[in-house]
């Protein structure tokens, strides 16, 4: 599988603050890649560097085989972008803006344009100044989706859309994926990330915390186990990977990571199990764990080594 985006050691400073501090990002061709992280983590800065709007201070960046700063115009023929905070020219109508942006890229397929307008239920005759945030986002989305670009870069494209439009958006992205397009999707909507993304990169404070498929990420975080036993289990506290252990007579409750799971279960079985429930981390817990720095530095090192 070829690599569409390869970023390593990316550094960007704004005055004294380091917005990006050695960020890593790999996006394979044809995949939908989720780009998530708390506010201010550096997602938009990364995307703007990938578009050649900002210049990196250090690091290697390859986008579709080119340098985003030097080859900006050539690369932009092959990608389409939806900014996070869409502002439009107030006196132009939505339809005019979609046409203008499409023509800059070499023209739009009118049937595709009409279909997308209908799908997203947008009135193209309204002036941009009277559009709501969601409608402004629709203008930028339609302009991007109607293009023949091989890559889409989307910065929180659905933050102003209603659930109906969110569903329309997800359907569109799946179609794009089926047509072999690469999508880099920055998003805060975890259900959207789970539904759409093949792989996910989580960043925090300008660094990549973890990267992988959602199943892989789940495996690396903690499962909560509570059990009713016949007798109190011996040595559970000493088992590597077990945390937050509470023992109340014969009932136990603890969390355990993927590596300690097998040994912990063996100990439980040896004590005799009356009942057992195990909860995998919810998606929210998974992200919060990484957002708040719950992931330890050695864990990061471990993931990066993988």
């Amino acid at each position: 599988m070829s690599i569409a985006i390869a970023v390593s050691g990316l550094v960007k400073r704004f005055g004294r603050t380091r917005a990006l501090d050695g960020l890593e990002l790999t996006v394979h061709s044809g995949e939908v890649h989720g780009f998530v992280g708390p506010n201010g983590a550096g997602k938009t800065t990364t995307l703007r560097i990938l578009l050649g709007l900002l210049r990196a201070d250090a690091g290697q960046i390859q986008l579709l085989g080119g340098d985003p700063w030097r080859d900006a115009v050539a690369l932009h023929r092959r990608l389409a972008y939806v900014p996070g905070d869409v502002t439009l020219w107030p006196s132009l109508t939505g339809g005019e803006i979609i046409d203008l942006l499409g023509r800059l890229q070499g023209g739009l397929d009118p049937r595709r344009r009409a279909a997308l307008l209908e799908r997203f239920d947008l009135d193209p005759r309204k002036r941009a100044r009277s559009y709501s945030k969601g409608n402004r986002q629709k203008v930028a989305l339609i302009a991007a989706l109607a293009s023949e670009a091989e890559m889409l870069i989307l910065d929180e494209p659905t933050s102003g859309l209603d659930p109906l439009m969110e569903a329309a958006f997800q359907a569109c992205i799946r179609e794009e994926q089926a047509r072999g397009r690469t999508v880099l999707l920055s998003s805060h909507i975890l259900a959207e990330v789970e539904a759409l993304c093949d792989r996910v990169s989580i960043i925090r404070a300008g660094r990549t915390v973890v990267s992988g498929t959602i199943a892989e990420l789940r495996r690396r975080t903690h499962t909560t186990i509570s059990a009713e036993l016949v007798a109190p289990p011996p040595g559970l506290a000493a088992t590597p990977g077990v945390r937050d252990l509470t023992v109340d007579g014969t009932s136990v409750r603890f969390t355990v990571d993927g590596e300690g799971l097998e040994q912990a279960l063996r100990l439980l079985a040896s004590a005799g199990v009356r009942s057992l429930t195990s909860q995998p981390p919810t998606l929210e817990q998974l992200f919060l764990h990484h957002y708040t720095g719950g992931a330890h530095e050695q864990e990061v090192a471990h993931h990066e080594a993988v």
Partner: protein
Amino acid sequence: MKPSDLAGTTTLLRLTLRRDRWLLPLWVLLPALLIWGQLSFLAALPDWQGFLRELTTNPLTSAWLGPVVPLSVAGAVLWRGAIQGAIVLMLGALLTVVRHTRAEEEAGRSELIRGRAVGRLAQLNAALALALAASLAAGLLVSAVSVGGGLPAEGAVVLGLTLAVAGWLMAGLGALGAQLLGSARAARGAGLALVAASLVTMVLNHAGGGYTGWAWLSPLSWYRVTRPFAGDDGRAMLVLAALSAAPIGVAYVVAARRDLGGGLWQERPGPATAAPGLRSPLALAWRLQRGLTIGWAIALGLVSAAAGAIVPSVSSDIGTMLSTLWPERWVRFVEAVGSQEAFLAVSLYILLILVSGYGISAVLRLRDEEQAQRAELLLARPVSRSQWMASHVLIGAAGAAGILLAVGLGAGLGWGLAVGDLGATLPLALGLSVAKIPVAWVLVGAAALAYGLLPRWAAAASWGVLGALVLLELLWEAQLVSWSMLLASPFAYAHYTIPPRELAISPLLGLVALAGMLAAIGGLGFRRRDLS
């Protein structure tokens, strides 16, 4: 209007004061400083009586500025200071009101405020309170400075109030425009057009001797109605104050009835698809700037037509004291071409300063587009940075050229129709205006340079350069700066003292090259920097 409609005014007034803490003192103090400058200039003149006689009998100055009444220091202060002071107050009041009403609404901040326990009219009320109080304060400062300079107290108060009332009128018209028009840009544009129109009515009044009915239509000439130091007409003063209150009342009525974000006219649906031509950054830049550009061309075309029409009524006598008061170069010029042509030359030269301002603001649109993040919508497409930046710079250059052509055409037609001889006047006026195009281009180039290299300071730097060049010109007129020093300014190469037949082509071509070079360096700077 219910009392609850005004709830929160005091808090909002504090907010407006906080936001305007640098801007407000500027326009409140400036009129008093201008009057003070006039007073100290006259005090320093050894023969001010002679100077005044010369000013009031000189056909050129009196065509623009009218007679000096009364023929005393007080009259001379009014003669220039009252007009300048009124312009400052009108602009200050207009821009302040729009900034705190429609601009807030457009930016969505009004929504944040109206969601609180704040009355529907509170924002308008706070903005107007600020502008009215500031105008009054500025007027009273003018009165104080005048009394301090030894002028009679009664006249000083009438002068101060006359200026304040001009500010009130524009505050009210600005508020009304902000209620009726759908955008802050439109409200500001309409207000500026009214200020420009009052310049025209002022000149018409002066051309008619200074005391015609036109004076009522020009807040810049209201001192000709209230006559400070020369009769002090208190009743006319009251009429003007009542007049200036009218738009304020209408603004409140409209504001109490309309939706947030709405205007008087419902937005009509626009085209669902773009016109075939809208396919490049340049086409978009023209689409964004065409309304403003055409508006400028029409407005300045009309102003120059009015100036042209006045030319035949300019007396062809040459004042006796001319030679001692003005630079020798100017005297030789008037002697060579006569007062009438000289009047037109000066008029077109003043308009050149305005056109340069248009060129600068057209280029600075780049900065607006970048900050509003609309630039990135285009630059994320296959549009190179040079191509995008060039679009607005080219509109600025072509627009300035077009407006100057309209100026030449207007002046030539106005003059030609007044004397019934288009064949002589049109080429002369067009020659004068076309020769000024390279000068405006240098300012366009300077703005592009500032935008490319110092984006955050682009506006301050470009307007600062224009201000410095105008100051240099004024210093030359006051004979504090020599002609060879003035040659450092691009304005000198299309100067009004150069007879049209003696305009040298090569320095003008040099200015074109300089403008291109400045813009190119700005473009290189823009290609290398981050987008904000």
